[in-house]
């Protein structure tokens, strides 16, 4: 059992890891074909994995309804929403699912009039959260918070027309903050991330890091 749960995945990770690492340096058609095949495998696996995801979602909410856990009523909307979407998706404007997806169907109507506005509503909440998070951060209790506050005020004012009216040097100072200290910090993080990603990849490829297989080592 340990052979199938540990050894086989480690061998696959090693072979594929080495192959895909070298693939980056080989421009030959054979290398490009390999990349295409692996990418297609990924897409195929992802397609089948949708069923696992759907099963998990329905199983979780079905159990909530069955056990009448607090708030179980919300779980009924999962089945209601998914059911209606699946029915209209399969109906496909009268053409049914054997034909290409039709435009302007009830399925599209639900997408554009329910899912898109609901998503936009969630996104718009971000503005309020930004304000509350900024208020907490900019209380200037420490010297770092004070520097952050000053930099943020300069950048915010420098990016709007009124900034230049207040003081003509605000926009160039804001640009300098973004392109020099901000860019330097960003690149520093990116260099660290890249080195960390390579080290993690090496640990996984050579079987040193096995936590992704579950348990310790």
């Amino acid at each position, binding site marked *: 059992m340990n052979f199938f749960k540990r050894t086989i995945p480690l061998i696959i990770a090693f072979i594929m890891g080495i192959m895909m690492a070298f693939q980056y340096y080989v421009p*030959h058609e054979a290398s490009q074909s390999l990349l295409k095949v692996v990418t297609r495998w990924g897409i195929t696996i992802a397609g089948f994995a949708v069923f696992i995801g759907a099963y998990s979602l329905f199983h979780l909410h079905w159990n909530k309804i069955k056990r009448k856990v607090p708030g179980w009523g919300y779980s009924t909307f999962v089945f209601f929403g998914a059911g209606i979407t699946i029915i209209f998706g399969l109906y496909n404007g009268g053409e049914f699912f054997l034909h290409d997806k039709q435009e302007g169907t009830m399925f599209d109507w639900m997408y554009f009039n329910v*899912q898109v506005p609901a998503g936009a509503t969630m996104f718009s909440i971000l503005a309020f959260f930004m304000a509350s*998070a900024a208020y907490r951060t900019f209380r200037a209790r420490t010297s770092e918070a004070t520097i952050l506050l000053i930099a943020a005020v300069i950048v915010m004012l420098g990016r709007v027309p009124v900034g230049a009216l207040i003081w003509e040097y605000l926009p160039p100072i804001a640009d300098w903050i973004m392109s020099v200290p901000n860019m330097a910090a960003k690149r520093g993080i990116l260099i660290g991330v890249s080195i960390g990603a390579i080290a993690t990849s090496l640990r996984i490829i050579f079987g040193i890091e096995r936590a992704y297989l579950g348990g310790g080592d």
Partner: protein
Amino acid sequence: MYKIFLTFILSILILQYASATTADEAGSLIPPADFQAFDTPNDNAKSVSLRWPSSPSESAAAEYVVYASLRKNTPFITEVLRINSKTMYEEGSDSNFHYVEIKPGKFFNKDSDVTGGRSSYFFKLVMMSNSENVTVNEIASATPKGNWFNWKKLNNFIILITFSALVFWFIEHAKKNPNLYLRKISGLDAIDDALGRATEMGKPVLYVHGLNGMGSISTIAAVNILGRIAIRVAEYDTTLKVSNIDPIVMSVSQEVVKESYLEAGRPDAYVQDNVFMAASEQFPYVAAVSGIMIREKTAANFFMGYFYAESLILAETGASTGAIQIAATDSYTQLPFFITTCDYTLIGEELYAASAYLSREPLLLGSLRAQDIAKGIIISALVIGAALATVGIGFISFLFKAS
């Protein structure tokens, strides 16, 4: 009278000759002296390169046109390139040569003429202006071939090999000397406190994966951390909820948590429904996870992986419920939001270091030491490179040049 007439005729002839000579000098095109075609190096057999020296008659009004054919003796009727004569200079040639890459597959059916399994292409260069065309005498030909190594990436390859050797050297070193010093990472030291608090309060621990799939290295790092956290959660006998946006990540997370519970000796405590698919889209996922935080009053929230615009909504909702929050992400655009709203934030590479740091295994710690040494080398290269570049020596910049 006769003399005047003769002088007039002579003057006309001289003027005509002079104007003809001037027109010839100003208008006649001098074609480039040489025209070469060759397989484009470091490619996948999709293109051929053309190179020719600049002509003295290049001007804004003159153009270079390249025609191609599959046979040398057939008419060249397929136009594959038309450029202004003062463009497409070869890099580093100081405008002395033109260089273009052509993808003949765009213009020809590659099966129509195959020589030794590959198509050869013939090219003719014509220089054109408003009044005349001149054709370069040579017909150049090339056969595109796939290359087995991209030499433009040699520096990248050497850096990879060097860094890999460094990692393995430090791993070997760590085997002999297991007590390696590593700098303290407060966010990871706080994990035990967060789990202890959740246990004391009898509230669940929420582990939120980022939005990327299993193909992203940050998701793999997040799954590695999940494995370590799940062991401790199982030992503390508290509830761990893991929300997922990707079904593959969910399946892997279920296995990881199950194995961790098994290793902790608590397989009975594992509940598959606690590692669940919350939603498959960004904002429905945010709504689902935020709802869980508010309804179940989770005591500790972990945000690990790559996040996008949802980071602030999730972390701010968690902060409003009073949960201890630890975030780790390599998404630098979302870092400010996590730093603002979470108790501890692991920045960039600390996400990748977390699993090794938590395990305290010498082999894993060795690779962390190698990371620190590599960073030291890069910092030195940056400082020395900046100093050398300031005095006009671009050697180090060349070493790190991306292809």
